[in-house]
């Protein structure tokens, strides 16, 4: 059990591409546990990606079941994902996002409503999950971290869209 420090932008690691985890060994299991511990310790957090604790390896954990918004929706509880990949997307939705690594700033981001994500789970097995709603948004946000992308790179509008639409 280890709670790690959550890196804050402008830490350069947050903008780096993470490496695939080739072998699911003890080190990978330890990383997942550190991610879970850090997420739980952060209290309000519904997910965290390895680069946020300084590890450039493709692993994220997501758990929306404890959050006010997430527990009202269908979800998979704790998801520990190694080498996750989104293999299908459906729909579009705009959500106001914030990030532990970018405090005191939020922005409207366009995300897919539904994603199908494939990953290696904690037992080292290939798993495919179909996720929608808040959980799907959390998954997309955390997976972006593995590619060095922050929600700031995806802000789609300045507050209300209404007035900036082309006629």
């Amino acid at each position, binding site marked *: 059990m280890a709670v790690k420090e959550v890196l804050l932008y402008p830490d350069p690691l947050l903008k780096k591409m993470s490496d695939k985890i080739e072998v699911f060994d003890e080190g990978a299991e330890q990383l997942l546990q550190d991610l879970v511990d850090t997420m739980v310790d952060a209290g309000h957090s519904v997910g965290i990606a390895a680069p946020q604790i300084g590890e450039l390896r493709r692993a994220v954990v997501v758990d929306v079941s404890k959050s006010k918004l997430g527990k009202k929706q269908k979800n998979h509880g704790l998801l520990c994902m190694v080498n996750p990949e989104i293999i299908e997307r459906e729909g579009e939705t705009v959500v*106001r*996002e914030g990030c532990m690594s970018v405090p005191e700033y939020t922005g409207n981001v366009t995300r897919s409503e539904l994603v199908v994500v494939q990953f290696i789970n904690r037992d080292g097995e290939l798993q495919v999950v179909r996720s929608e709603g808040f959980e799907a948004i959390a998954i997309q946000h955390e997976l972006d971290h593995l590619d060095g992308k922050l929600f700031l790179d995806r802000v789609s509008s300045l507050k209300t869209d209404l007035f900036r639409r082309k006629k």
Partner: protein
Amino acid sequence: MHHFALTIIGRDRPGIVSQVTEILYQTGCNIADSSCSILGGQFSMILIISHPEYENRESFGAAFSPLEEGNLSVFLRTLMPDGEKRAALEGELCMISVYGADKPGIVYRVTKELGDRKINITDLNTKLIGDESRPVYVMMIEAILPDGVEIEEVEGWVESLKTEMGVDISVRSITAVEL
């Protein structure tokens, strides 16, 4: 370090922002928070700026004259110490959409209800849309509900306002999701 609020308004054209910020850069000002937008045919800039030595309007001398010569209106407010700092805004963030046939008093009536309930407006936009024969007024408000005020309660008193004003109003939570 002294802080100032600077507002600049003038007929919209390309180059206003760069002209303003070049002057700020050359005089050694820092820009903190700012918001700039087109309203009608006017471009408006609101900026919180700071300078390590300048203490008041006089310190700026004729720095903004080129802007005024270019027909831009410039207003500088010297902030009191800590005037640049925002109090922590706690509570649920919600979006209130108000729209309907244009008539006097829409903004006043709605915001009075908010103010009376100590609901803090953090952002407000209004726009007149539709054609001249059928003008439609649209107002979008972002506001923070203080502890103890629930969305359902706001929806409740909004109902009577809708009937009274003959406008449509909807309220929804837009609390940012922390990820």
